Each structure stands twice: as C-alpha cells, then as structure tokens.
C-alpha cells in the first residue's frame, strides 16, 4: 500500500517506539498534524516552539529516550534554534522535525521559508533536508540512530510540504548503513592496562565525572568503581546526579562555584581520571593551573573531547561502562593490590576530610529574610528521593547544584553547556509527561521564569502537576553578583524593578499560586504545594543580594576561591 510522506513519518516514529511528541502546528506541517489524529502518538501542544524543544529535551534527560519535537517552517523552525543548541551542548538525544516550503520554492524566499538546515548545521549532530519521499524512512531511521548512539545529540529533519504529500511504499529499514559513522565502543585493552598501572601508582587520585556518565547510564558502574578504588569523586554540573551527592566519597561539584574541598582535591591530586567530562572553562578556571600535579586519564566516547582544552597523559576512547568495567576487572586480578591501594590512599582521604571540615558548604542563615539556599534545603527535605529537579539559569541554579542532594541519575535537569534561561519550566514539563508519577520541580529565578512562563498554560491543559519554585530576588541575580564583585556595584540593567505578582500570574493561567516572604512560611508553602494537585507556582521573596559562594573569579586557578563575600 502506498503512503504519503506525512504518514511515512508517523509510521517511522511508531517503529522507533515514540509515544509522545512535543510541537506546534503551522502551514507546512498541517498534513502531519492531520494524520497525527489517526496515530497512537500523544502530542503535547506547548505555547512556543522553543518550549517544545526544551520539553522534548526534558523528556529525554529524564528517561534516556530520544525526545521528539515538531515545528512548522520559517518562524516555527527558527524558534527551535535555542532549544536545539541547548540539547547539542549537553549531548541530549533528540529528533526535531520541521516543515519546509515545497521543494520547487526552496531558495525563492517563499512565505515562511528559512534555511533551517543551514542555520542548525553547527548545533546539530547531523541534519537532513528530505528531497525525495523514497528517502524518508531511511532518513528517520538514521536520525534516531545518530541521535542516541555514540555521544548523543540532536538531529534535525527538514521535510518539505510536497515531500509530505508525495506517495511511495512504506518499508522501514532493518538496519542502518552509515559508513562514515562508527562510534568506538570498546576501550583499547592496552590503554586500559596502562590506566590500571597508573591507578596503582597513584596516591592522591580523583575521579572527575561529567554528563557522559548520565548519557551512558553508567551511574551504578561508577559507584562500584569509586568504591573499589576508594577514590573521591568530583562532578561537573552535568555529572551532578550521576554520582549520589550524599555518598561518603562524593565531594560535590568542582569548578567556578564548586566546593572548596572538590577544587582543593583536584588541584592537589596526582591522578585525575576524567569520565565523560570535557574540561569546560567553568570547570578548569585558568587552564595552566588546573590539576598541575596530576597525570590525566581521559575516558570519553567522543575523541574530539580529548586533548581539546588540556593536556592528557592517557586517552581512552570508548563507552564508559565498557572502559570502567575493563579497568575494574584488570585491577581485581590482584586482590592484594586493591587492598594496598586503599591503604596507600587513606592519608589522601583524610586530607580531603580536613578540607571538608575546614570549609564545608554553608551559608549564613536568617530568621528575618528568606535565604535562597534555605529554600533549596527545604525542598530537598520535603520531596521524595526520586524527585526530578529542573532549573533555569542563574544563582538559583548554582544553589540547587550546591545544596540539593541528588540520589539518582536523571533527577537533575539543567542547561549546563549553553546556560539557557527559560529551559527549566518546559524541561520540567517534558519530564512530567515522561514520568507522570514522579514529583517534578522547576527551581527558577524571576528573570528566567519570564522567558517561558507561557508554558503554565500547557501545564494546566494537560494537568501536569509540576511544582515551580521561583527564588524571587528582583534581579538578574547572577549578573548582578558579577557587577557587585567585579564592576564596583554598578548594577547596569540587572534590577527587575517591576514587581510581578507571580501568584496572580499563576492564577491567571488556572494554576495555583502560593507566596512566602518570611522564613517561617517556607516549609508550609512547600508542603502545601506538594499536597495540591495540578501545577503550583511558589514564589519565595528571597534575600535580594545574596551571592553564590565559593567563587573562582574569571582567570583564576580553581584553588584561588573567594569563599565568602
């Protein structure tokens, strides 16, 4: 039986076991939307295409499955750009489908034409313009394969309207033939042996864990590995939930707003084992002074991540679980050696403990004004262990990373690489769609919230019980902090001086709004929000000029931290 391009697209999505798509209709996807009514695929109508992509992203981060978003040509497609770039920077598996003007009109500046393939070339793992309906099922198959394998990432398929209408026989390919794409899965045995030797020789080892650990679902392997070696673990923002924050070997986050003890450990280590991390400048500070005494082993599925920013003594390209597993087995061949290793590194662990005791992660509490960190601590206390926490970008994001205890992988959804304000709410939305029975919380700032606040409507429409906590400081707080510390308190364009009634805003959309402006109201507001069905927005009026500390100033080494302001 012949099918149209639009039907072939939807059939192919079914073949990929897609049950949910996020999107927004328009002229060049109207046929797809018409056919969608006949397919068992749930569509979530966000109120902005950027949000559709962030929602697909949140869905993917929470589940590990490929997120799918649909948008129309021209403005619909250009609205997806920030979402795609966000997913690209954080290696999130995603397929974005855009409508395009009919092929004979491409290049003519037709109505709602934009060269989205050209625009997204540098922010997708790969992208396609489908010119012939006979290529469509192969392209969809490849797109999903590319999105989820190797180092994951977003793939865009641009589908002209005439191709959606053209017909051909539908047959979904059994396998993918891509001679130019063969990710290295298996770690080289010789490199693994070298790594084992280096570990045996180390006295001050540190594991430095990034988002790759989440992408490859290596959480359990990582815990076993760290425990086997009795090696302290620091994580990046993206690696945060991959290793439990409360684990005795966890030192929390390193880098610009990392813990004192994480940064001290890295600076003084003699062996740094990077696992699915990419030495971002927010992590390394001044590169020349980063881990100056350490030999560096770098394990990553993406060869381009290795030696991009820092020297590496031993690169191992491969899937993390494979490589970690191989190193562990190599080490376990000699049980006595393992026991000796733990003994040799005991002084190192007690050194770290004393750094931890010297400058623990803390803040000055108050009973007059709500401290933002206090709100985070209370949310942590009152939510379930498997609650999914999304954030926007700014101070509230850093406080969440610093003061929330993450117990399970895929429970912390945050835009690490691109740092996209407006990410959190739609990402939380997508996560809640994926995990209807879990608690999903968006920790937000007053600035970021206004970048995608329209998604309150989507939450209400689909009865998604996302809880939003706005830490309202009436500032673009993170930028204000820099202005305070490095620009003489010249607060240029950072006060958000129109006091917005967020409670009323929530109510206008048909959600519940709650306000706390005194510390003693914080707990009851959180409890009430968690007990209220449906979406709830909590506004916390917090200390306006609280700063995120510790902080590594730009250009400084990571052990040159400002500890308090």
């Amino acid at each position, binding site marked *: 039986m012949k099918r149209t391009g639009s039907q072939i697209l939807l059939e192919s999505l079914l073949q990929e076991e897609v049950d949910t798509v996020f999107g927004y209709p328009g002229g060049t996807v109207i046929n797809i939307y018409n056919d969608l009514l006949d397919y068992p695929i749930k569509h979530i109508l966000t109120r902005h295409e950027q949000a559709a992509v962030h929602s697909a992203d949140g869905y993917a981060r929470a589940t590990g499955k490929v997120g799918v978003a649909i948008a129309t040509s021209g403005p619909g497609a250009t609205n997806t750009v920030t979402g795609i770039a966000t997913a690209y920077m954080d290696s999130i598996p995603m397929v974005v489908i855009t409508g395009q003007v009919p092929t004979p009109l491409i290049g003519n500046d037709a109505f709602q034409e934009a060269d989205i*393939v*050209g625009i997204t*070339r*540098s922010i997708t*793992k*790969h992208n396609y*313009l489908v*010119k012939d309906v006979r290529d469509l099922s192969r392209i969809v198959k490849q797109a999903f394969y*590319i999105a989820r394998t190797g180092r994951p990432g977003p793939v865009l398929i641009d589908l002209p309207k005439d191709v959606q209408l053209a017909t051909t026989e539908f047959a979904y390919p059994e396998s993918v033939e*891509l*001679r*130019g*794409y063969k990710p290295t899965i298996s770690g080289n045995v010789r490199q693994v042996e070298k790594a084992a030797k280096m570990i045996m020789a180390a006295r001050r080892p540190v594991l430095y864990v990034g988002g790759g650990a989440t992408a490859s679902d290596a959480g359990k392997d990582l815990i076993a590995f760290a425990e086997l070696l009795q090696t302290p673990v620091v994580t990046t923002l993206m690696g945060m939930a991959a290793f439990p924050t409360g684990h005795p070997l966890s030192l929390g986050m390193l880098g610009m707003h990392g813990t004192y003890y994480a940064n001290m450990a890295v600076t003084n280590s003699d062996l740094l084992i990077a696992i699915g991390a990419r030495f971002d400048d927010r992590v390394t500070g001044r590169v020349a002074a980063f881990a100056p005494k350490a030999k560096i082993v770098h394990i990553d599925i*993406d*060869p*381009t991540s290795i*030696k*991009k920013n820092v020297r590496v003594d031993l690169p191992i390209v491969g899937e993390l679980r494979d490589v970690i597993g191989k190193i562990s087995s190599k080490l376990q061949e000699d049980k006595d050696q393992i026991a000796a290793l733990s003994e040799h590194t005991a002084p190192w662990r007690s050194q770290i403990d004393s750094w931890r005791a010297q400058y623990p992660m803390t803040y000055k509490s108050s009973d007059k004004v709500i401290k933002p960190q206090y709100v985070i601590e209370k949310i942590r206390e009152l939510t379930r262990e498997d609650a999914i926490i999304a954030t926007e970008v700014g101070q509230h994001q850093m406080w969440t990373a610093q003061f929330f205890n993450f117990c399970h992988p895929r429970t912390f959804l945050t835009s690490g690489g691109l740092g996209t304000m407006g990410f959190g709410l739609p990402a939380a939305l997508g996560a809640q769609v994926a995990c209807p029975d879990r608690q999903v919380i968006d920790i937000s700032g007053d600035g970021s919230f206004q970048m995608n606040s329209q998604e309150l409507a989507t939450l209400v429409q689909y009865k998604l019980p996302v809880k939003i906590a706005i830490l309202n400081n009436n500032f673009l707080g993170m930028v204000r902090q820099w202005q305070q510390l490095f620009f003489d308190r010249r607060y240029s364009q950072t006060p958000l001086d129109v006091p917005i009634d967020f409670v009323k805003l929530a109510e206008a959309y048909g959600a519940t709004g709650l306000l706390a402006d005194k510390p003693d109201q914080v707990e009851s507001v959180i409890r009430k929000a968690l007990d209220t069905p449906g979406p709830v927005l909590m506004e916390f009026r917090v200390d306006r000029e609280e700063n995120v500390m510790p902080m590594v100033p730009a250009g400084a080494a990571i052990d040159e931290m400002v500890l308090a302001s």
Partner: protein
Amino acid sequence: MASHEAKHTISVLVENEFGVLTRVAGLFSGRGFNIESLSVAPTLDDSISRMTIVTSGDERILEQITKQLNKLIDTIKVIDFTDSEYVEREMALIKVQATEDTRAEVLRIVDIFRGNVVDVTARSYTMEITGAPSKIKAVIDLLKPIGIQEIVRSGPVVLGRGAKGWNG
C-alpha cells in the same frame, strides 16, 4: 614558530551528499581553523567526493581538525599527510601580457617549466602550468615583471606514494 604553525595537507573522503562542502567549510570557520586551499571533486565511486585541504596550525590544532572532520557523519576517511610520503600537484592558468618584445621570453619560460599555451591573442598568452606549489610560485615570480593579467590556481591535490589506495 614556523615549525609550530606548519602547513598540513589533509585528504577527506566524504559522502557525495547535498551540503557536505558547507559542513566541512563551516567546521573550519566555526572552530576558527584556517583553510589555505580546498579542492573537491567526485572520485571513481561517484557516491564519494575527495577533498584536499591545506591548513595550518600547531600539533594540537591539527589533531582537533582531523578529529572534528572524522566526527562529521558524512566523513568516510580523513588522511593527514604530515609525516608521510605523498605526491602533490597544483595547476595554474596564467594570462600574461605578451607584446612584440616579450613574446619570446614568455614562451621560453613556458617551455622551461613544461607548461602549455592554451590560448593566444595578439596581446596575450594564457598558459597552463602544473607542478608542486613551489614550481607554480617560481613561474609566477618570473612572469610578474612581464605583466600577469589574471591568474587562477586549483589549489594542490595530493595522493600518498606507493601501491596502496586509501582503502587498502
């Protein structure tokens, strides 16, 4: 410094797909890598194009370039000719003013460099010169004083020495 910022010649075999040239060129511009020259045409297998790229940079940059090129889904193979034996040829078409008193001199130069005259008018010769880029440069240096009207260079193309092809 010169040795640090050395020139490198890279061959890239890519899927002969729509947009592949932009992907490669975009990668260089987006990541701040230099392109000194780039030539591209289909191979025997017309589903594969071969690009020859001359770039410059230190060792670390060159490593990134080859890795990033390999990362493109459409890239089938990247061959870096640094530290290996290869033959290199470039072609130039050069239009030279040729008056009564310079015509003979121009022809002599063409002859010495084993070039061919491919177009003649009363006032000009257009010649074709093929060789290593250094040879092309030598010809240009000699012809400059006589008067070069216009020039086009293909950019170098290279093949590895020996009996083996890129895929064995």
